[in-house]
């Protein structure tokens, strides 16, 4: 596992790939653990890895929340077409990434920050090269201004109204 990210207040311009916050979503078929990747150099990025049983498990919200958490770039690694053990998981992942790319454009984040690569099973060198390429791409892009307070948390799915709020004539607010 890579190091956890922490907000760097006032640090709007990044210098050096090692300071970049890169989140990598990968399926277990591309590689097992991020530590296996040859990314130990001083100038190499130190990504946060999110391991998934299949790249199709990458949900739109995961990608967006990675950016909310401060990621400068997000990488999705999928199996080559025709090689997904679940047949079409990588195809779904690609469509989802395209959709989020369009959404990021609507949001107005500067530059291209979301990337998808096909990685053959176990090809850790290719995975590392892809991550380095992303680091080069996002270096110099401005970071999001830091949050003034904590990131708001989602409310649980089922919220129950406490007794007495819903009166016989409806809620009067």
């Amino acid at each position: 596992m890579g190091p956890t990210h922490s907000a760097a207040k006032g640090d709007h311009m990044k210098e050096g790939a090692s300071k970049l916050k890169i989140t990598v979503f990968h399926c277990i078929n591309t590689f097992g653990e991020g530590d296996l990747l040859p990314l130990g150099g001083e100038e190499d990025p130190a990504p946060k890895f999110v391991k998934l049983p299949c790249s199709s498990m990458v949900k739109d919200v995961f990608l967006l929340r990675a950016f909310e958490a401060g990621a400068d770039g997000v990488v999705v690694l999928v199996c080559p077409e025709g090689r997904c053990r679940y047949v079409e998981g990588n195809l779904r992942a690609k469509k989802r990434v395209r959709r989020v790319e369009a959404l990021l454009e609507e949001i107005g984040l500067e530059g291209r920050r979301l990337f998808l690569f096909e990685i053959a099973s176990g090809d850790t060198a290719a995975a590392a090269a892809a991550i380095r390429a992303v680091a080069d791409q996002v270096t110099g892009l401005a970071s999001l201004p830091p949050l003034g307070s904590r990131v708001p948390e989602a409310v649980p799915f089922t919220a129950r109204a406490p007794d007495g709020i819903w009166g016989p004539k409806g809620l009067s607010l």
Partner: protein
Amino acid sequence: MIVAEQKPLAEIKEMVAPYGKVLLLGCGTCVKTCFAGGEDEVAVLASALRLSFRREGKEINVEELTVERQCEDEFIQESAPAVARSETVLSLACGAGVQALARRFRAVPILPGVNTTFMGVLERPGLFTEECSGCGDCKLALFGGICPFTRCAKKLLNGPCGGSRNGQCEVSPDTECAWHLIIERLQALGQMESLRAYVPPKNWRASLSSGPRKLIREDHVL
């Protein structure tokens, strides 16, 4: 199901911009099925709004909640505490749900996050098609289960116009000719003779053309 499409982010952002605390309320029924306003869509939109405002150096407090349906009190009341602590509610339900919320929470602005479009079906994964206009006087039995009021561009009731080409409507090549489909279906059912029966002009009084409708079931009213 009712099919809806989420509004563009820019339009939603403009609606919520005056408010500091927004409840993003999803619906777990129709709009969830068509990927417009379910729990997943609430999460994505909330994140997109926060990112978009943060890019401008602003912070928006978005609370996320999804209830089973926004058209029934039983589920609407579950949202009451969250509504009570919000300045506005951005509802991702269909127009019926938005209005139901607005009637029950009079002091809180309820904003529509989706454009409600039609009553339809999931034809195949990712494709939703309009099937029913809610005319109030269903004659599907005459047409092999295919509605010419909804699916024929000219709303013809007594056979095709003759302008179709390769089974596609002359109004739009992306639209199947409803009468082509009706005839194929009646052939399969062995009911082609039913086409000889004259179907009189539709009485639209049972439809929205006569104004908003009500259904009262006295056996359920206490």
